[in-house]
């Protein structure tokens, strides 16, 4: 299967088939669109990260001294909005999913290539609005836009920010729609549902959420916008409007959206763990089922964000109960990954290090989810740094790790070059250490009672905050490294084999990088996913 001897430049592939700006901006090739997304979200990651660093610097001392109170409020608002809507939600689906799903199921493209391009342009339109918001003085609603604060009491660019997120929402909707139809209709002959790689299953589950949840967010933000612009008083308490209605609508989307920010990562990690254990995933069917179960149950728990908001006692009981139900499939996944290692042949490449990091940090973040789903405990820790730590453990410790792991894993396929392994391991280690130093102290801070979104705080919280800020600076270095060496490797990296890891999956059976139509001939699939028993291992030295 390895035809490594032929230098890359001589083979035609999707990168060198055509050059020039137009060939990129008008492309309908899912792989090129994936790269367009990659550029866009990386840009936003650094913007969001920049805000995060300013947040951390402000919190170095208890007094509000570095920036003004209003500025601080804008910083965490835009940090949250940028990171969630412009980085993490599109990260794995729109970049890796876009690139890989058609190849993994043996298709030449997504079902609607032009819609795919359109969704990127919609993303760019939303980005433009977000950048306008940022440059025009920012917005300070908190990423949650709670009414009536957002509708009546703030004087910042609320409408622009709501519009920005409204617009990128449609980009997600179209991506999800495209994935669903593609996975249903474009599978290669023999690629049955039970042979799909888990990465595809994960993106399928994600797409369900995109399609069902995003429109509800869209309408709630649209109503906030209308309320500000035309005084349509849907949420206005002075008209008898219920301020909790907005929270219900917002979380109806945004809780499922947190699973959008983890399911694709679970898909990535499944691929990596199987590959570097050189073994079929333990309990494939349960893994696939668990993904769908999370997506579906995820729609039944939204009000667990509102336990102290004034909902009725019985509502709280129900939503707490379902929060525990949705944790069960997550537990299944963690146990199956662990079991996959058993009697495997495990190599510690960079992607695998990220996968280990993911499993560990996701487990910790998820378990603190069990703390906050317990009604009695949540009353104390909600809206404190405990929550901040809970979700950064999952979203940064989990999902960003999975995303980076996936980028390393498929980098040879995407770019045709290998990244430098030594640097890769160093960065993974730095990120792991920096991450824990940043966010572990926040659990303690939270239980001690430090509220979130606080520009100034009482002095007894300072020690832990200093630790956290120190960690964030290590984290920043850790994140800059891959940026640098990925760019470096595009030119100087070792040329990659078609299948450098000895991995299973159709994407490894085509060339690196693939040609524009992915396959010379559409393969007919006659084997199960993760048929590692039929593949030779790549010895450690050669990786």
């Amino acid at each position, binding site marked *: 299967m390895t035809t490594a001897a032929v230098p890359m430049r001589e083979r035609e592939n999707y990168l060198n088939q055509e050059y020039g700006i137009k060939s990129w901006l008008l492309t309908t090739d899912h792989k090129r669109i994936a790269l367009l997304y990659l550029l866009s979200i990386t840009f936003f990651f650094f913007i969001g990260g920049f805000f995060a660093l300013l947040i951390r610097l402000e919190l170095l001392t208890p007094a509000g001294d570095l920036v003004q109170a209003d500025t601080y409020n804008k910083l965490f608002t835009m940090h949250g909005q940028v990171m969630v809507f412009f980085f993490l939600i599109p990260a794995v689906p729109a970049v890796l999913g876009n690139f890989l799903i058609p190849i993994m199921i043996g298709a030449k493209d997504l079902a609607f290539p032009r819609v795919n391009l359109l969704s990127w342009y919609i993303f760019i339109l939303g980005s433009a609005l977000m950048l306008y918001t940022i440059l025009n003085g920012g917005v300070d609603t908190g990423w949650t836009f709670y009414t009536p604060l957002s509708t009546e009491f703030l004087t910042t660019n609320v409408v622009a920010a709501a519009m920005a997120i409204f617009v990128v929402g449609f980009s997600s909707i179209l991506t999800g729609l495209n994935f669903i139809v*593609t996975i249903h209709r474009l599978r290669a002959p023999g690629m049955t549902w039970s042979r799909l790689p888990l990465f595809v299953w994960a993106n399928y589950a994600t797409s369900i959420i995109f399609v069902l949840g995003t*429109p509800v967010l869209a309408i709630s933000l649209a109503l906030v916008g209308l309320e500000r612009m035309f005084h*349509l*008083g849907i949420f206005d308490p002075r008209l008898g*409007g219920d301020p909790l209605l907005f929270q219900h609508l917002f979380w109806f989307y945004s809780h499922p959206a947190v699973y959008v920010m983890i399911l694709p990562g679970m898909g990535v990690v499944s691929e990596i763990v199987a590959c570097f254990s050189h073994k079929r995933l333990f309990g494939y069917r349960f893994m696939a089922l668990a993904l769908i179960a999370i997506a579906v149950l995820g729609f039944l728990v939204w009000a667990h964000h509102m336990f102290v908001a004034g909902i009725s006692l019985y509502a709280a009981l129900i939503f707490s109960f379902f929060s525990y139900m949705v944790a069960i499939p997550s537990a299944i996944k963690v146990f199956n990954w662990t079991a996959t290692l058993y009697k495997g042949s495990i190599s510690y490449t960079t992607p695998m290090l990220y996968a280990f990091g993911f499993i560990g940090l996701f487990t910790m973040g998820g378990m603190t989810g069990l703390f906050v789903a317990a009604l009695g405990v949540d009353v104390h820790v909600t809206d404190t740094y405990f929550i901040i730590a809970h979700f950064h453990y999952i979203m940064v410790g989990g999902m960003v790790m999975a995303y980076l792991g996936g980028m390393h894993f498929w980098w040879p396929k995407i770019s045709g070059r290998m990244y430098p392994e030594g640097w890769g391991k160093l960065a993974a280690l730095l990120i792991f250490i920096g991450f824990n130093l940043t966010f572990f102290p926040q659990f303690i801070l939270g239980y001690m009672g430090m509220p979130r979104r606080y520009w100034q705080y009482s002095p007894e919280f300072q020690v832990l905050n200093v630790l956290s800020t120190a960690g964030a600076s290590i984290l920043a270095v850790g994140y800059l490294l891959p940026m640098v060496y990925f760019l470096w490797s595009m030119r100087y990296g070792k040329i990659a084999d078609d299948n450098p890891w000895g991995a299973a999956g159709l994407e490894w059976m085509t060339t690196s990088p693939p040609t524009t*139509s992915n396959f010379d001939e559409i393969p007919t699939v006659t084997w199960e996913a993760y048929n590692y028993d039929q593949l030779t291992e790549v010895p450690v030295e050669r990786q």
Partner: protein
Amino acid sequence: MSDSSPTLAAHQPGLQHHFATMEQQTDASVMGMWVFLVTEIMFFGGMFVGYMIYRYMYYGPWLEGSQHMDFWWGTINTAVLLCSSLTMALGVRASQLGQRRMLVTFLLITILFGLGFLGIKSIEYHGHWVDGQFPGANFRFSGPNPAQVELFFSFYWAMTGFHALHVLIGIGLVTYVVYRSWKGAYGPDYHNPVENVGLYWHFVDIVWIYLYPLLYLISHKHLSG
């Protein structure tokens, strides 16, 4: 790149390169449309849920608000929209049978009905506006619970407004399809875009079928009974 450029199939109805068969292509696009309609249901669903909750909480003001709906315009508009759905369906049938002229005619009538709907809606809107029934500074209402009645009107404007926006988009889409059919793009083997636009049109119609009773009917009946 060239083989998948946006201009592909612009003149020749045909198979796009990444589909194996025409049937697969049609299946995919119909499924895509249905999935899209699901997202639309969720979009309007948010407002319907809000309406229901408030209707329960503020029953009186909701009754009061309904009295200010123009029953006759609403009913006529319902008829107009239903007729447009009929002509739309006839148009789709014409495209399946390959009757280009019929197709164009029916779609044009559909557009007219759509415009008629919007026209009537704007007459209503104008009336509400003049009567001070637009929420905000100009809102005027002299009965009890003006605030909650204003809330009702907020819903009225938001729900019918988004619906009208959808009708407008629908008219745009139908216009595009008319243009393409005029050019002869659709025939018995390829008329998928007509079908999809038809689905969208019917969906918009159905949304109105829910809006009409909720806003105009329920409470009228209640009062007379």
